């Protein structure tokens, strides 16, 4: 029946209206903002948009966009898994601090020193980062399931504890600052056999990969997470049960799926994935751990999950949008002196417009569907 097929495509396209509207309206707002900042110079404003466009055509900038999107993809998926279950895990921030810390302890004390076992080190870094993240989600999960304590309260508090814990380890047991060597508090450097390889080093000699692209092996990890999350969410009963719980906890209970078990698992898996958020920076860029790493990736991931409709593909697209806005923002600041925070403002604006537009669109879509069903039912 071809009619139904086209209808499904129609509904899919309709669901894309909200993000497109959000981005378009935000672009208009950005136009006027830049116009204001550049004191009414239309030509400057047009030039600014040209610079933004260039960001997408330059290989180096594209590399930066991907590098910035990568942790957000992981963070967005971590948040999305919890959100789909109706659990508001806003502790991904703390979970990646601890995930990174636990993996760093492995790297410093327990890793294989032989370069030929680098791949094993990568696997163990992933495992320990996930364990660390899950551990940090475990306490809120237990409190929620056993005592009904709301996860927003507990996870946000765990964020604070995570940061302080990281600070303690960096300045205390793991401290690698030797007198006068560096002012930045950091741990000891990881053994070379742990450090993530640059993609350039991997591909060099096999195919032409630009040297200045700041990407590491962790990109593969992010890709695997996206793929596995997609399969789990849409093709397995784990994802189905998470979806059930997030949609209607009562009916979930009535179908014999214990809500507590699903909440607990969703929370733990969300935390486990969150543990991996910043491995690119820790094991790729830095090669040591510090609590002074990029912060806020967890919260950005929440926004990414929101814009990406908690869908892995949507999350990837949203993360790229964020990465693009950041990178373009730096370029604008550098070339035209437009404050970088303009882009943060636009990001926030996109989220608000999109949320409003998607509520309206969802209503419209369900009305359309109802109408269609009623008319077809009447035909019989």
């Amino acid at each position, binding site marked *: 029946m071809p009619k*139904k097929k086209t209808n499904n495509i129609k509904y899919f396209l309709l669901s894309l209206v909200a993000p497109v509207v959000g981005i378009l309206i935000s672009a208009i707002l950005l136009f006027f903002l830049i116009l204001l900042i550049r004191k009414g110079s239309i030509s400057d404003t047009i030039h600014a948009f040209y610079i933004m466009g260039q960001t997408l055509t330059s290989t180096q900038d594209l590399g930066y966009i991907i590098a910035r999107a990568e942790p957000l993809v992981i963070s967005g998926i971590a948040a999305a898994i919890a959100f789909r279950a109706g659990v508001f895990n806003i502790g991904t921030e703390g979970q990646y601090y601890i995930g990174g810390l636990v993996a760093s302890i492995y790297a410093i004390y327990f890793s294989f020193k032989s370069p030929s076992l680098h791949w094993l080190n990568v696997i163990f870094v992933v495992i320990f980062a996930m364990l660390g993240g899950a551990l940090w989600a475990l306490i809120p999960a237990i409190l929620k399931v056993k005592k009904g304590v709301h996860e927003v309260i507990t996870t946000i508090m765990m964020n604070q504890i995570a940061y302080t814990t990281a600070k303690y380890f960096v300045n205390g047991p793991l401290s690698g600052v030797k007198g006068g060597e560096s002012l930045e508090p950091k741990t000891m450097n990881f053994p070379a056999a742990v450090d993530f390889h640059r993609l350039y080093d991997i591909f060099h000699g096999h195919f032409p990969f630009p040297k200045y692209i700041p990407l590491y092996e962790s990109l593969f990890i992010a890709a695997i997470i996206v793929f596995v999350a997609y399969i789990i969410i849409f*093709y*397995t*009963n784990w994802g189905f049960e998470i979806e059930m719980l997030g*949609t209607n906890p009562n009916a979930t209970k*009535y179908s014999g799926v*214990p809500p507590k078990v699903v909440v607990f698992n969703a929370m733990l898996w969300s935390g486990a994935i969150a543990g991996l958020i910043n491995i690119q920076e820790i094991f790729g860029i830095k090669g040591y751990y510090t609590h002074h790493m990029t912060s806020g990736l967890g919260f950005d991931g929440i926004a990414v999950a929101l814009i990406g409709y908690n869908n892995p593909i949507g999350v990837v697209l949203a993360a790229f949008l964020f990465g693009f806005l950041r990178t373009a923002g730096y370029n604008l600041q550098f070339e035209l002196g437009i404050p970088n925070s303009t882009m943060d403002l636009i990001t926030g604006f996109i989220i608000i417009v999109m949320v409003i537009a998607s509520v309206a669109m969802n209503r419209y879509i369900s009305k359309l569907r109802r109408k269609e069903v009623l008319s*077809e039912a009447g035909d019989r």
Partner: protein
Amino acid sequence: MPGDIILKMENITKRFPGVLANDHINFDLREGEVHALVGENGAGKSTLMKILYGLYHPDEGTIYIKVDGELKPVKFKNPQDAIKHGIGMVHQHFMLVYGLTTIENIILGYEPSAVIDFDTAKKEIQKIMDESGLHVPLDVDVEVLSVGQQQRVEILKVLYRKAKILILDEPTAVLTPQETDELFNIINRLKEQGHSIIFISHKLHEVMAIADRISVMRKGRLVHTMPKSEATKEKIAELMVGHPVLLDVPRPNVTPGETILEVENLTVESDTKGVMAVDNVSFYIRAGEIYGIAGVEGNGQAELIEAIYGLRPPKGGKITIKGEDITGKPTHVIRKKGVSHIPGDRHKFGVFLPFTLADNSILGHHREENFAKYGIFRKFSNIAQWAREIIKKFDVRTPSEKVPMSALSGGNQQKFVVGREISFEHELMIAAHPTRGVDIGAMEFIYRQLFEEKKQKKAILLVSADLDELLLLSDRIGVMFKGKIIKELDNTSRQVTPKEVGYYMLGGDVEIHEDSDIAGGEQSA
């Protein structure tokens, strides 16, 4: 006796996207009459009343209200406007604030003065109560009042706001037969005082008992208005559905087989700690038998089901299915032992509205090998196939199994849920209010399906607030009162009367024995 026309709705039309909810409706109301408005769900009754109450605005048409002895066109922007014109609505779901007293609830929003003068208010309410016969304690938290009393508070609220026209939206849905009789007395008294009442109901015998005129709606149109003298139940039913309906579905003759469900001395705690919602209840159901549980809602029926279905661990007692102990087992285990359940509140417990019919068709069984490889990887084509079978077998009106559940009408949603639960392998069917909120057509269909179950030698536990339904379907009826089954009535040849059940629903012995034919019921147990 009914006087002049005080309300006229002319050519009222209201369109919703894709639906013509009200199609050029003409409706009027005389002073001092009860005008019943009947029709299936979705016929447009509530839309019409919401227009009258100012909640919706008509696309076309005019409302006239008698002001100073003359009919004048009015436009209601909101319910406050309607109230000002003397229109009051008693909603099916009460709009009471728990934690506030009766008097506070009545005057809420219409306080006599900025600093509330309770004495004046009380005097006024007392006067209304004396005139109408609606007596309720004024200084207690409304939460402690019975459902019938809460409804009186709702009516008092409307009268306090000086309503002359009362809209009663399915007022008897929550009442026992005795409470219904009292409500009818009150309605008659209000009539005598010159109030006019629009009475919305599904229950035809009630309409016949109380209405002066009857209007029937079908598919957004008002098909007929007639005085009671011209109406019969059959005629109304026919007008409602457009073709004659067999309200009396023939009951199949099945000899009961082995005992399927046995409940022994079951005790279940309510949400309040220490209070037993189900108190030492014992009964059994055999194969091919329908066991009905009657009772005013909130007497432990819900908790009884939850205990059998594994949602609420019992405090004591034993539940067995075919001799196998399932006491305290989790729901998924109990479902596997052959228990299906049609939940009482479809939207809350039975379906996932945004999910497709396919996804809704496998709930609770989604981990079975037929629907998922290794219990994990979902087999979409099998699931779709399964859903299509349910749709076909149970006449669910939908273009395909790929549409979201929310797109279906209430009756079709319920048919789908009933179909799903019947389609899974089972020995025991727990049907809670299986026809709540569905139209007569779907109702009859569901009755036939439950009888089909009976023929298939399933054991059926039927909990319903609809007495007619219980009497029509059940072989035996257990009446629950305050957590106990205080009476079991034999209904194998449909000999139980609603009055009899109603008597026990209110506690039986607690009442004075005045009705001699109750003895018949006691004998048969």
